[in-house]
């Protein structure tokens, strides 16, 4: 194992190099560009043996990846924000066809107003597209997700495309020291892609067909079962990953000081670190604070969320997202998990970080204080305060 000082994008590219995709089709968009630039360099220097297709749009990027996957090849693409929205049609196509493509999405705000900085409105708006959705916190996790993603997506029980989300700039462009697994170990961990969902000259196939009302919903049910099966497969894959590479991951959620926690922030992505630091600080003054980091939004950790929040006095969902006219989408999902499990705990939604706006340690401390004292159901951090969000 070697160590390198890498940004999130670069770490993800290293993970993809180890996963050996055969076809890469991508279109540049800030802040995703570094990952495709590094991959192009790897193709050029021969350290990655892949077809790099310079497509003319994100729609074509994913359409091309679907074609490659239908040909039986391991396919990769990467995008962000407007690009993810532009390829939206193909997202549903890839999942409906059960093509285990992997995509890195650099989480970024969506226009209008134009903004290139990080929030999670792009990927969270596509929760229903049938993709597994993972959210990395740091560059090491980004690399490890890249390597694990194909093993999870390509598992016969799952056969579902996989979207790994990295917070734009905050994670994609921030450097840290990262362990790079050895090629030999990576090959042992991730075998070549095998499937019968592909073009076959000995037994020709008709693919991506229509299905009428009599069978359509059966296909959809099976698609649902496939992504649900990822719950077990993620756990199995992480176990195997830990045995080979020595790094452990905790499945769909990551818990921090939640065992006896009375006040818990539920969040996702790179902001979790600051939440943990704040929880530590509050614990010193006697507040039983905890943090839950959602690692996978799909399949959604319903049981895990209900279990970890069951004995809390109140929780906050902190997210860089808003479903206009309602509340943050993560909040909706968390509340649904609790309702289904019969857990009745006061919950509050905190919207922050939109368009890359900084979320400070003070903001997070305020969230804990707000849920201790009770506040509005949906809160935009800073709006209405002293500086009214500025």
């Amino acid at each position, binding site marked *: 194992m070697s160590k390198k000082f890498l940004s999130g994008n670069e770490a993800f590219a290293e993970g993809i190099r180890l996963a050996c995709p055969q*076809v890469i*089709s991508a279109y540049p968009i800030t802040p995703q560009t570094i990952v495709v630039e590094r991959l192009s360099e790897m193709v050029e220097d021969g350290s990655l043996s892949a077809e790099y297709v310079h497509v003319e749009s994100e729609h074509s990027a994913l*359409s*091309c990846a679907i*074609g490659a996957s*239908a040909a039986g090849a391991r396919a990769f693409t990467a995008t962000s924000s407007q690009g993810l929205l532009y390829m939206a049609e193909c997202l549903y196509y890839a999942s409906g066809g059960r093509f285990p493509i992997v995509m890195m999405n650099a989480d970024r705000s969506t226009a209008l107003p134009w903004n290139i900085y990080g929030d999670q409105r792009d990927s969270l708006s596509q929760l229903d597209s049938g993709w597994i959705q993972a959210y990395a916190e740091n560059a090491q996790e980004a690399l490890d997700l890249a390597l694990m993603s194909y093993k999870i997506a390509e598992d016969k029980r799952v056969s579902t495309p996989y979207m790994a989300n990295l917070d734009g700039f905050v994670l994609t462009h921030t450097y840290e020291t990262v362990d790079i697994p050895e090629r030999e170990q990576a090959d042992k961990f991730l075998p070549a892609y095998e499937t019968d969902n592909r*073009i076959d000259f000995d037994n020709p196939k*008709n693919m991506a067909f*229509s299905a009428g009302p009599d069978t359509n919903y059966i296909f959809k049910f099976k698609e649902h079962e496939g992504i649900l099966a990822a719950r077990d497969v993620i756990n199995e894959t992480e176990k195997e990953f830990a045995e080979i590479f020595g790094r452990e991951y905790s499945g769909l959620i990551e818990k921090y000081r939640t065992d006896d926690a009375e006040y818990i922030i539920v969040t996702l992505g790179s902001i979790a670190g600051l939440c943990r630091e704040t929880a530590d600080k509050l614990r010193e003054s006697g507040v039983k604070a905890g943090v839950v980091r959602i690692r996978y939004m799909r399949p959604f950790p319903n049981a895990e969320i209900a279990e970890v929040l069951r004995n809390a006095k109140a929780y906050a969902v902190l997210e860089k997202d808003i479903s206009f006219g309602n509340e943050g989408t993560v909040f909706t999902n968390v509340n649904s998990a609790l309702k289904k499990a019969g857990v009745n705990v006061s919950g509050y939604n905190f919207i922050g970080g939109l368009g890359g706006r900084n979320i400070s340690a003070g903001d997070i401390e305020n969230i804990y204080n707000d849920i201790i004292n009770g506040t509005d159901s949906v809160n935009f951090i800073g709006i209405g305060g002293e500086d009214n969000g500025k």
Partner: protein
Amino acid sequence: MANKVAESISREEFFYGHKACAGCGGSLAVRAALKVLGPNAVSVLPAGCMSAVGFNFPQLCFSNNSIISTFAGTASMLTGVEAGLRARGFKDFTAVGFAGDGGTADIGIQALSGAIDRNDNIIYICYDNEAYMNTGIQKSGLTPFGAKTTTTPAGSNIHGNLHNKKNMFEIAAAHDIPYAATASIGNIPDFIAKVKKASQIKGTKYIHVIAPCPTGWGVAPDQTVEIAKEVVESGLWYLAEYENGTFKLNYKPKEFSSVEAYLKKQGRFKHLTDDDIQIITASRDKKWEYINRTFEL
């Protein structure tokens, strides 16, 4: 009595049992092309007539490997299929796309342009029936001037479509594509020869075949082939190729047949006035002036 053209293509049927309208020109183009390319053709068809009539699970009408793409994604999926199969070590196959006029000239033109620009090793066949027939005869970028469609109704104020047909053949050629051709299902030997030629050229190949739709054009099902001959004889369509930087005209009618006769046979042009027909004739003459000046014979 041996038929050389019939002998030159596969005896197998690769597009069979489909639910296209009786006399469908598009299905004839797809059938003929696949018989040229043989069992190792991998076809990509966007959402549209030929996918709608051929891929209804469990009635699956392509005997070769075939896949539906998104409407805009014929060319990009072809690229992926070709790259994926090549990456897996396959050499002896042809990635071929069949998209209609709307799928090609409107929603799919960006992906097509990208594929030609990259010179991906694919054959792209546009079966042009001159409107969005699958959705019920709406105007496309390849609907000719004057045609009545459900979105260009012919009334007393507006006589059908006000715009001219986009020139996809020359748009493809302008990319300096290795091979582009026009064809008509009224001349199957010519179409077959062009598909065969395309299959032997490396890089991107574009074939634009006029494929009348009896339903949308308002002709009887048994008229499809004849009207596809007449569109060439009247000079409103032409058979040509682009190769090595030059345009070549394959066929020049000794004398154009009547434009009016061609138009008046079709329900979609019934409403046209003498003035409208004059505009169409003048536009044909202008086009042929250009062809005579710049195309080799």
